[in-house]
């Protein structure tokens, strides 16, 4: 499985048996600068999957492009062997907490209800059943006492729980979460982990961007090691090895970053048009 490429980089790729998500030769650029190169892998159904890598490795970019929030320079992503647009109802997303303005004039319950909007459709108003569903989700994350609270009054951990409850309210089969454990207190961390574990025991797939190596080993079933390219993917016991981690964290591949910068500077499209 371990092979050496021309850059002497080590990599390891284990294919999933029952595929939830397939990344096919995915390349993504920001403002012409490629930040992810040729990601090609399959992720298994019903597992808790961690995407691990150093700062700037493209972890968030990977799940954002899976959710169709970023234009792809090349490749595609398929979920349950279908295109995202055909199964959107089954896919849920938790963005990074810092991406929204928490002083926005709305309540905890209202935020969780947003998770019901896609099922409701345009023009339809929130029904009683949606409210009950949202309440049940708030209960799952231990926030049922905060229903009416204005969101600016929440602590970081509580904000994260609300975002998780909103995703749960979508009642999806596949969850993409961007740093749900970042900056949360210990109680929130274990509460979130419990919810994620429960989801996977129900056969749902949870894909989580995670920055903390230490806890990663305890949290996840399956690991994606990322550093602008795919370093390794597979079950934790096979992938979480010293030399693979060193490969992912041992600094960026300098040639790769330099080429990215050059492409940006000279505004060369990262894929040729003809």
């Amino acid at each position: 499985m371990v092979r050496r490429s021309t850059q002497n980089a080590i990599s390891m790729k284990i294919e999933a048996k029952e595929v939830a998500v397939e990344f096919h030769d995915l390349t993504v650029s920001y403002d012409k600068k490629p930040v992810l190169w040729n990601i090609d892998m399959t992720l298994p159904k019903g597992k808790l999957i961690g995407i691990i890598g150093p700062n700037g490795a493209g972890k968030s970019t990977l799940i954002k492009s899976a959710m169709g929030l970023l234009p792809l320079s090349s490749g595609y992503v398929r979920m349950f062997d279908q295109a995202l647009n055909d199964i959107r109802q089954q896919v849920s997303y938790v963005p990074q907490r810092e991406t929204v303005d928490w002083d926005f004039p709305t309540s905890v319950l209202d935020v969780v209800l947003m998770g019901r909007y896609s099922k409701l459709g345009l023009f339809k108003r929130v029904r009683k059943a949606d409210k009950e569903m949202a309440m049940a989700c708030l209960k799952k994350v231990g926030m049922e006492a905060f229903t009416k609270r204005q969101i600016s009054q929440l602590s970081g951990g509580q904000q994260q729980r609300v975002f998780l409850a909103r995703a749960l309210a979508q009642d999806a089969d596949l969850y993409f979460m961007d740093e749900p454990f970042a900056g949360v207190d210990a109680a929130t961390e274990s509460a979130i982990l419990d919810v994620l574990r429960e989801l996977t025991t129900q056969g749902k797939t949870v894909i989580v961007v995670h920055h903390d190596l230490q806890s990663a080993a305890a949290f996840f079933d399956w690991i994606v090691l990322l550093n602008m390219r795919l370093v390794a993917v597979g079950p934790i016991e096979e992938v979480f090895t010293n030399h693979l981690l060193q490969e992912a964290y041992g600094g960026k591949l300098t040639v790769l970053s330099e080429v990215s910068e050059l492409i940006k500077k000279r505004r060369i499209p990262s894929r040729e048009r003809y």
Partner: protein
Amino acid sequence: METLRTFFSFSDPNIVAVVVGAMLLTASSAVVGTFTLLKKKALVGDAVAHAVLPGICLAFLLSGNKHPLLLIVGAFVTGWISLVLIDYITAKSKIKEDTAIALILSVSFGVGILLLTYIQKTGNAAQTGLESFLFGKAAALVGQDLWVFGVVAVLLILMVSLFFKELKLIAFDENYAAALGLPVRALNLLLTSLTVLAVVTGIQAVGVVLMAAMLITPAAAARFWTNDVLKMTIIAALMGAFSGLAGAFVSYTAPTMPTGPWIVMIISIIALISFFFAPSRGIISKSIEQQRLQFLIMEENLLKELYHLGEIDEDPFKRRTIDELIAKRFFPRLPLKSALGRLRRQGYISRKEDGFQLTKEGRTKGKRVVKLHRLWELYLSRYMKIAPDHVHEDAETIEHVITPALEAELERLMDYPELDPHDSKIPY
């Protein structure tokens, strides 16, 4: 006074028309403006407001008449072009958004004034009244104009209420909206079109120059009174409508007076009042809250010092004079006296002719502050490895912050320690 009575008796159908019209226009721009504000696009609204002027002039020049629908179309087109240009400049050049907005705003307003002056110089008889687009004229809102602009205003309010939950979501978390599969592009397009239309209708009342105020100020003022988007929208609409009413009155009583500045003045006063007096978010309520906190800290410090003195003399209920207290720790005399008064009224101390004395409740409360102080000192030196002579200042602040839950956690964590880093006994 007499005019006031005539005006508000609404006996003249013209007055009713003008009032209803002005209120509709200002309310509808306030409703749309709420989302412009929440999306943090306030300045863009200002640019659009200035960019509609050349559109109005061009529409007039090309057609030769002032039919409101024509003017709306002209204004809509240039308003939209200005938005597209701002986005294009920001995306494709090194110019940042604020600069792009400033550029588009001033250039398009310059072109607008140029065209307006040219039209006025041609001596075309039909052009009279075009200049009211500069500063607004509610009283000019009669007949056909009233109908067209009134319908547009109602349409704006209708569209916002139809798409309310979607607009709210793209204002709060656009990425999530896209992940849900909502048509985010189309919704943004809708909001932009609504903004442009709100500007186009609103300038009838307040004019190009001050339109941004009409779009943004009611929403900004309403934000002080509520934490809910729906309530905020309604309050903004009511505030806008009220200023519209005032504007119509001015326009009626003083026909030579431009309406816009008056409307904007009224809404600004409402905003100022909100800024100062709104409960919880207003400046005054915030400073009262701050003052209350200062009082609380002062009171806790006094109880702490009284407890401490009792510890030293091994007589917790000994009477103390004000000078004794000041000698223990400097307090300015006047605040000290008023704090002692407050503590007496709360039953924490009692006053005797030769000084003050802790009550039982006061002693318990003072003891808790001392305990928290010492617990925190110990925590800092034990867990954060801070030298014992550096922990006091921190503990002075933290002793007022720690909640009963944290207190229990600290006790548990350090297993009910007996001594602090300075070997003082931690009282339980």
